[in-house]
């Protein structure tokens, strides 16, 4: 049994009279100790999917199960204890900590509420200290306020708070994208090592495929509310099965001097009015007959590697040797 399983989840926002299907039937799973990277362009529904996993937004259809129990949307009351094993690290280290409460108190919330441990003041202080050290901060930071810290330090504190709840799953939504390059590396490392050491599942969301690939065991690529490809990190990176994943990888500027990244024309369409058929077809360089009309489903290309693309299911797909070869071939 997976730690968390998302099956055909659908999340709909209301924007005036328009319905925005921000997540339009996405499936995903995360195992204990596994790092799953979720990538995709801005607005494709990554955050929404993350929120759906945690029950921060209600599902329109589909299901999310955590350790076998269905995730209830977070309502007025307190979250049931079993679900407190899911924690989140947010994008903005400035707004994810309460500016008016001491760092230690906020971490202590995690101990008391999240893990449900009733400790005396000294015990709590000790535990907070441990947690801060675990994320690489001195113990005496507990008495300070968030504004005294840099972005990276804040993110560590947020991680400490999440850890305090003794989670089995951590969802990190763009947890490093607001940070400096060098801080990014250290926070990413911290998250990945925690996942390994504590046997925690990590859903790592980022638009930076480079980092995701480096950290994750598996990658899921999202486009316009759907997961279009999932597979082992290096497989997806090395031989992307979906033209979108390919384009995404190709667009990353490399450190090889003078090489301009590949251009993918067009923008992500408005999720309120998605294209028919395959959602990617208007931008797809390899679109063919069935793409505008029929929506491909996520099917295994090889064991553990699945893609939602007609190219793999239709015999009459235009042949291309580049599908499984190096993505930069066309540059």
């Amino acid at each position, binding site marked *: 049994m997976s730690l968390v399983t998302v099956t055909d989840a659908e999340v709909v926002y209301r924007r005036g009279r328009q319905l925005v299907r921000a997540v339009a039937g996405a499936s995903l799973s995360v195992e204990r100790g596994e790092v799953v990277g979720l990538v995709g362009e801005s607005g494709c529904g990554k955050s929404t999917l993350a929120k759906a996993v*945690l029950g*921060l937004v209600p599902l329109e259809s589909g299901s999310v199960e955590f350790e076998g129990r269905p995730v209830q949307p*977070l309502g*007025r*009351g*307190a*979250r049931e*204890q079993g679900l*407190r094993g*899911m*924690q*989140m690290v*947010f*994008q*903005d280290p400035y*707004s*994810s*900590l*309460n*500016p*008016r*409460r001491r760092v230690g108190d*906020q971490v202590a*919330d*995690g101990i008391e*509420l*999240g893990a*449900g441990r009733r400790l005396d003041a000294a015990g709590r202080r000790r535990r907070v200290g441990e947690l801060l050290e675990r994320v690489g901060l001195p113990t005496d930071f507990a008495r300070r*306020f968030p*504004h005294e810290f840099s972005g990276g330090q804040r993110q560590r504190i*947020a991680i400490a*708070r*999440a850890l305090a*709840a003794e989670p089995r799953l951590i969802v990190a939504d763009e947890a490093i994208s607001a940070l400096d390059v060098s801080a990014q590396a250290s926070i990413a490392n911290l998250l990945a090592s925690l996942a390994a050491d504590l046997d925690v599942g990590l859903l790592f969301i980022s638009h930076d495929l480079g980092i995701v690939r480096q950290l994750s065991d598996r990658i899921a690529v999202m486009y316009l509310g759907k997961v279009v490809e999932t597979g082992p990190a290096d497989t997806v990176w090395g031989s992307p099965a979906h033209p979108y994943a390919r384009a995404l990888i190709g667009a990353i500027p490399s450190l090889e001097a003078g090489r301009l990244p590949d251009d993918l024309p067009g923008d992500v369409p408005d999720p309120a009015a998605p294209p028919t058929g395959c959602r990617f077809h208007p931008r797809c360089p390899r679109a063919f007959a069935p793409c505008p009309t029929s929506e491909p489903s996520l099917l295994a290309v090889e064991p553990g590697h699945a893609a939602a693309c007609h190219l793999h299911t239709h015999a009459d797909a235009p042949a291309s040797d580049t599908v499984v070869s190096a993505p930069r071939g066309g540059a």
Partner: protein
Amino acid sequence: MRTLRRVLSPAGADAGRSPWSRPLAVVGAVVIVLWVLVALAAPLLAPHDPNAQDFARLQPPGGDTLLGTDGLGRDVLSRILYGTRITLPLAVLLVVLATTVGTVLGAVAGYFGRWADTVVMRLADLVFAFPGIILAMAAAAALGPGLRNAVLALTVVMWPSYARVVRSMLLGLREAEFVSATRLLGASARRTLVVDLRPNVAGPVLVLAALEVGNAVLLLSGLSFLGLGAQPPDAEWGAMVSEGARNFDAWWIGVFPGLAILTVVLAFNFLGDTLRDALDPRTARALGGTP
């Protein structure tokens, strides 16, 4: 003072300069302190009994009565000094009441949203759209006239502004990631509101309330001016201005108490405006700089 500074500083720490480095704030604070001292020491400072009708009527300023006497032969200066004991505490009381009611309702509206929000905000609209004078009048008539009832009436008039501020603050805070974070940790909505959000709202609301004392003085003295507030023989400033407005020849009866109101309100506004600058992240951000 320490707490005030703390309240003001954290979030936008690097933005605002300390309000105490601004001369206006200092002037305001000094004037307020002076008036508070006057209120405390009125019996010592006042040269005469404020209600004794001992003097010749309508004496112009000078002589034994520094600021002249009113239509009943009372010493205007003494009445102004004693007036602090009516105006200041009641203004504070009014602000406290309005803030409490407004904050609670605003918090409920902002945090719970939906029908609670609708109900509270419609009520606020109602008050905004309702002529305050009629409300005050009705309260004065229903509860019996008097400043205490005027305070109650004005509470009804004033709470919506706080409710709106608190609501809009909470609308933002509710979506803040740190709230989601504690909710995920298992905090109930009530705990979130009380433990997490209270300190965030309390600071700005306290400051806002502090600045509103000036406004409260204006409202209260306005009601008294209309005859719906202070009861004789109380030496209330607005009521004194109202008496002065009857006879332009005896200008001193109304002009001096009006100046007293002006200085008190101005002092609160001097202080408040500077505090607001230090507080309001929008202004603070604007202070960040451009050509």
